[in-house]
């Protein structure tokens, strides 16, 4: 793959296709994906037969949404359970040599498996990785601090992307769990990286660790130009806070779904995730009616991978809350921008809207004492929500937080303290724990 000059914002021409051309290619890719699955992949043969999918190609995205059945995590997990094996008939390997198996995030308490071949890891998935690393500021020859939690697809793709970019990688011991945060901070001090790839809870922990050590975060992060975080959405106040505290040039969010095996980074405009339209098609549907939603409207994202040589997901419902961001992006890319707001199961679906974790985070992060603190949103009435916080704060402060949520979301809300929020190994709130 050809690497562009460092100063260039766009990685390749595939990101700036005229929208009509992009749509034409996507429709062709969708028909090809469905045709391939119907002919070769037993899992989809069953799903398509049950839905009575006719073999004729679709002529529009509307028709695609109406005719092609969607699948969910539980369908994939159920197939693994029923088959007694990780290989369930979604693996479009086409006789190619298998080189890697990864696990999905296991958000249902059950990890499924994805299979990868070198042909995809040198082809479509590598291109996806290069665009994503490029958009979050990784450039050839940069010293990048990263971990390789190699059970996860993103780690494998980053590894191949960093290789292609000729980056120098610094790999401290550990994984993205709180116990390793001091070690990551030591690694930043010892090796002076220019870029860091990590998760949001670990970044939060590193800044707190600076405070514990009474170290100036600006000194600690003096060499670092960019940080890119995966795993959860970052609020605008939090991004400003990190930039202010560490003195880095920019903080980027990376997002997607390890279950649907797609993802993308934010550009400098921070409007959402640029998704490579020639590699993945993402649509947003109403979680109740299943109706295809126009840009700007919130629903759940469904992904169809347009790639082969790996496990493929067709109309896979990632069960997150998302919207396609309307309008042109100042970065010049013409591929779709998808904003992700958190898991649907962590959100409250009201009559006329979905209140997602990112909405609450955005409001709470305006108050320093609540920034980054774990919470859970609960349904408290037809148009009412309650936000249970995992940290103890004085009453006056809770009332300030309540006001912040009410005025930001224009919703009847109360912020309270809950003693029994279960926090997972990444520091995230476990729903129903």
């Amino acid at each position, binding site marked *: 793959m050809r690497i562009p000059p460092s100063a260039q914002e766009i990685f390749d021409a595939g990101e700036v296709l005229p929208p009509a051309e992009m749509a034409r290619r996507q429709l062709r890719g969708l028909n090809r994906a469905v045709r391939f699955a119907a002919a070769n992949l037993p899992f989809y043969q069953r799903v398509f037969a049950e839905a009575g999918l006719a073999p004729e190609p679709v002529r529009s995205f509307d028709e695609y949404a109406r005719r092609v059945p969607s699948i969910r995590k539980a369908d994939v997990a159920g197939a693994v359970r029923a088959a007694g094996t990780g290989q369930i008939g979604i693996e479009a390997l086409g006789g190619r040599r298998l080189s*890697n198996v990864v696990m999905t995030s296991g958000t249902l308490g059950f990890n499924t498996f994805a299979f990868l071949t070198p042909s995809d890891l040198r082809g479509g998935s590598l291109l996806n990785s290069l665009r994503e690393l490029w958009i979050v500021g990784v450039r050839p020859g940069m010293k990048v601090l990263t971990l390789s*939690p190699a*059970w996860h697809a993103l780690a494998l793709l980053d590894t191949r992307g960093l290789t292609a970019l000729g980056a120098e990688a610094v790999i401290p*011991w550990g994984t993205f769990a709180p116990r390793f945060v001091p*070690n990551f901070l030591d690694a930043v001090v010892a090796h002076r990286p220019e870029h860091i790839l990590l998760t949001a809870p670990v970044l939060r922990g590193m800044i707190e660790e600076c405070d514990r050590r009474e170290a100036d975060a600006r000194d600690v992060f003096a060499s670092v130009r960019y940080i890119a975080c995966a795993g959860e959405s970052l609020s605008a106040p939090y991004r400003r806070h990190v930039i202010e505290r560490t003195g880095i040039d920019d903080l980027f969010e990376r997002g997607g779904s390890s279950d649907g095996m797609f993802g993308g980074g934010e550009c400098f405009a921070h409007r959402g995730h640029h998704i490579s339209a020639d590699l993945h098609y993402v649509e947003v549907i109403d979680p109740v009616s299943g109706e295809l939603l126009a840009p700007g409207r919130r629903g759940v994202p469904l992904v169809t991978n347009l790639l082969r040589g790996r496990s493929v997901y067709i109309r896979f419902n990632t069960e997150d809350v998302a919207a396609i961001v309307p309008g042109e992006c100042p970065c010049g890319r013409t591929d779709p921008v998808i904003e992700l707001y958190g898991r649907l199961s962590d959100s409250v679906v009201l009559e006329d809207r979905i209140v997602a974790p990112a909405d609450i985070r955005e409001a709470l992060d305006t108050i320093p004492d609540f920034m980054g603190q774990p919470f859970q949103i609960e349904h408290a009435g037809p148009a009412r929500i309650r936000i249970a916080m995992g940290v103890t704060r004085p009453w006056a402060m809770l009332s300030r937080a309540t006001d912040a949520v009410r005025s930001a979301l224009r919703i009847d809300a109360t912020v309270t303290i809950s003693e029994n929020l279960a926090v997972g190994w990444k520091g995230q709130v476990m729903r129903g724990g």
Partner: protein
Amino acid sequence: MPATPAGLHQLATHAEREHDPFAGRRSAAAEPAVVIQAADGAPVYLALTREDIAATARALSSAWKTLGVAGGDTVLIYDYGASPLTLFASWCYVPHLEKGAADLLGAVPICNDGLPEFASRALHVLRYLRPGVTIVDAAHMPVFLRRVAEERARIGEWTRLLAVSPDDEAAGPREIAAWERELDLPVRLLLRSGPALFFAAQCEAGALHADPRHYRVEVAPVEGSEPVAVGEGSLCITNRFLRGTSVERYLANVEVAIERGLCSCGRSSRPFRCLA
């Protein structure tokens, strides 16, 4: 003059005193492609060139081969992604590697990551992917055994060999026999030392072998003594392939006995075993 043997503690002390994460072992001439931490909790790093990364993967694959990993096998690794046990297993686990141990042998790796919380996920992989060989970091064995007992899993039906990998420490024959009894499954050692990027595997005859093309192994009979080629004492490793980092006479925290004669398995390297 041959180097004075030094262990991880001395390297860590040097690293902290001199503010040098490479503990004086980095070669100034070689351009590193990847820098990795030598061990959990130690402020010691290794600088690796592209050639070093490829050679480390070859050394790991040699150990895998001794364990009987073959083409078509799935290999489960229950350890951190940042551990050398994982990093050099696949061309997708560490940057600038084109063939990992699995790729060299035609096997397919899957990593479970290394938190104790992931023991049940290791069983999940065993249940649904049936790896030919399962590699578990020795530190995870207590939690792994507990999960196996709790889930009443008969993992002998899911994998044909469990390779237990102690990092810079020993595991004796009694311990291995106890694991074999408890799991009803053949268990072998995959001894490793992160600070020396060293791998040695137990052969079918029960002896440990380190590939002599990759390592010179010696023993230091008593603390401060000159290492010798044969006998009992602390394992002393010289890594022959690293260029970015010099590993000469690294003193591992493992007591071993290196035998004079050859092993009945037919391998040309001197067999050695861990002393309990």
